[in-house]
């Protein structure tokens, strides 16, 4: 029984890491630019497919390193062509633009790599259990949690200790003021979008090793990521990470006993949070409006 609980909690932590990585990227973009990026799941899929195509040449580790960067470059280009003109307009328009973009990315992936699902090879030793007594702790699961922790660590130290990060944080509070102090906010928003897409890309490569590749693979992860943001509170990145892990673990534990209710519990948590704390667990009140 104890082992079962541990297994499901670990499972949940792994799923939660996906949600947290995805949601962090979404959150970064929402906070600075008020753009809800529907295409985030599309970027996740693009990165996964790129990793699939390059892994015969550069191996799993090379793909994990390069594919998200390439995806981020795609994101930077799309931001500067299609999303930049919409800043300052009603958020409805950027929402719709990324909605169209989500269609485009998904269909492009299907066009290039086909509609059937593809397997993604991971190194043999990663698929094996780490220890004999806990057979379910595979190296890959450990890797996913490690990558999440490292990514979050790097992101937060960037945000708190580099000039770029400080500007991004300042921009989420008052972008006009940041622009007035002489910061080029075009570049700032562009890089911020790139970082967000990069995180989705990392999540994509990792997800490919678990669920395989499918053009619509981002769809099953993007909705819980929205919930992670709502539970954690819009405007708070720490909240987003905690929200993601929280709903992941809840889904993991409930899914162990009632598989079909795994995702329902996520939404239930969202409803409870909205009932008792509409701004989310860590959301600041002033960012709400």
């Amino acid at each position: 029984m104890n082992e079962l609980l541990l297994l499901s909690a670990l499972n949940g932590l792994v799923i939660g890491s996906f949600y947290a990585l995805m949601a962090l990227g979404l959150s970064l973009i929402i906070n600075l630019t008020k753009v809800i990026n529907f295409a985030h799941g599309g970027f996740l899929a693009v990165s996964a497919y790129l990793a699939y195509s390059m892994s015969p040449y550069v191996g799993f580790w090379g793909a994990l390193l390069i594919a998200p960067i390439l995806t981020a470059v795609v994101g930077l280009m799309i931001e500067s062509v299609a999303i930049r003109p919409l800043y300052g307009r009603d958020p409805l328009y950027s929402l719709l633009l990324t909605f169209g973009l989500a269609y485009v990315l998904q269909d492009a992936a299907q066009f290039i790599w086909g509609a059937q699902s593809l397997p993604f090879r991971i190194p043999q030793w990663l698929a094996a259990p780490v220890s004999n007594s806990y057979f379910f702790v595979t190296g890959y699961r450990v890797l996913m949690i490690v990558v999440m922790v490292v990514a979050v660590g790097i992101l937060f130290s960037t945000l708190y200790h580099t000039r770029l990060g400080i500007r991004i944080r300042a921009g989420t509070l008052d972008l006009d003021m940041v622009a007035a102090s002489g910061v080029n906010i075009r570049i700032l928003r562009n890089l911020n979008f790139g970082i967000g897409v990069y995180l989705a890309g990392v999540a994509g490569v990792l997800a490919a090793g678990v669920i395989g590749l499918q053009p619509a693979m981002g769809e099953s992860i993007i909705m819980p990521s929205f919930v992670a943001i709502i539970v954690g509170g819009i405007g708070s990145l720490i909240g987003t990470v905690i929200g993601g892990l929280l709903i992941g673990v809840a889904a993991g534990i409930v899914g162990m006993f009632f598989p079909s209710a795994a995702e329902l519990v996520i939404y239930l948590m969202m409803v409870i949070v909205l009932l008792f704390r509409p701004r989310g667990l860590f959301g600041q009140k002033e960012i709400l409006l």
Partner: protein
Amino acid sequence: MNGPAKSLAVVGLLALLISLPYVAPLFGIYIGLVTRIIILGLGAVALNFLIGFTGVVSFGHAAFFGLGAYGTAMVLKYFVPSTPLAIILGVLLGTLTAVLVGALIQQLRGIYFAVVTIAFGQIFYYIAMQWHTVTGGDDGLTNWSGSPIGIGSMKLHIFNDEVALYYFVLVIFIISVAIISLLLKSPFGRILLAIRENELRSSFLGVSVNRYIWVSFVISGLFMSVAGSLYALLNNFADPHTLHWTMSGDFVMMIILGGIRSLWGPLLGALLFVGLQDVISSYTEHWMFVIGIIFMIIVLYFPRGILGSLSLRLKK
């Protein structure tokens, strides 16, 4: 356009809609397609009540569309074969859900409101996919039928007479749009416009903004579920896709295509949307790619929609 010209246009449009079952086949257009356009148009008009006239963006309205559809289908399949009762109960299901969801989110604004509606919409999709025994899961609900609808001594066999179904849908569409139009002209509607234009000032005037947004959300959800209920009757099928977030996005796109500031624009938007989908998918199976690109171009270069851009031209 002002007074007489506008009423002339509306009369012309009505005449066209009434004659369509006889005109459309001449051009090789299947009447079921026209019915589909009008139903989706009703949904888009309903959603625009909230987005265009209250200024609140919901990206999860497919929930009410789908609930209307599933409610109607479930009543007909499991309880009684009475079509009018099924429509009423389907609409009730959608509307009550809108009341509950609206109560939870009325105090949220802007993108936060949008994000939460996205997530809420997905709940019902998820339930429909998982609760196999009742909702049919991925396959949806099929194999059901209802009684003909009696009006006086006349019977409308909407399940096997396409033209009868078309007129039935048209009548409901006209009544619904008339109600929405009257609401918008009433003091209540004026307050919604005021909230859209300046929420802070409206609240200074003593308007309880949250309450009004809630009511607007519910009205919009109500007519959305009417459209959903009709959609199930048209297809004889309750489809889980009607609950999906892409459906919500498609409705918002219809609004933008037609023009966000106009009452009738979304109907035109639905026409363009269904037309585009129909034409593109007859040429390539990658219609999602093409329609996605078109969405992006419209958003970037024609943000006022087709009607909006046209009327701006006319004014100049």
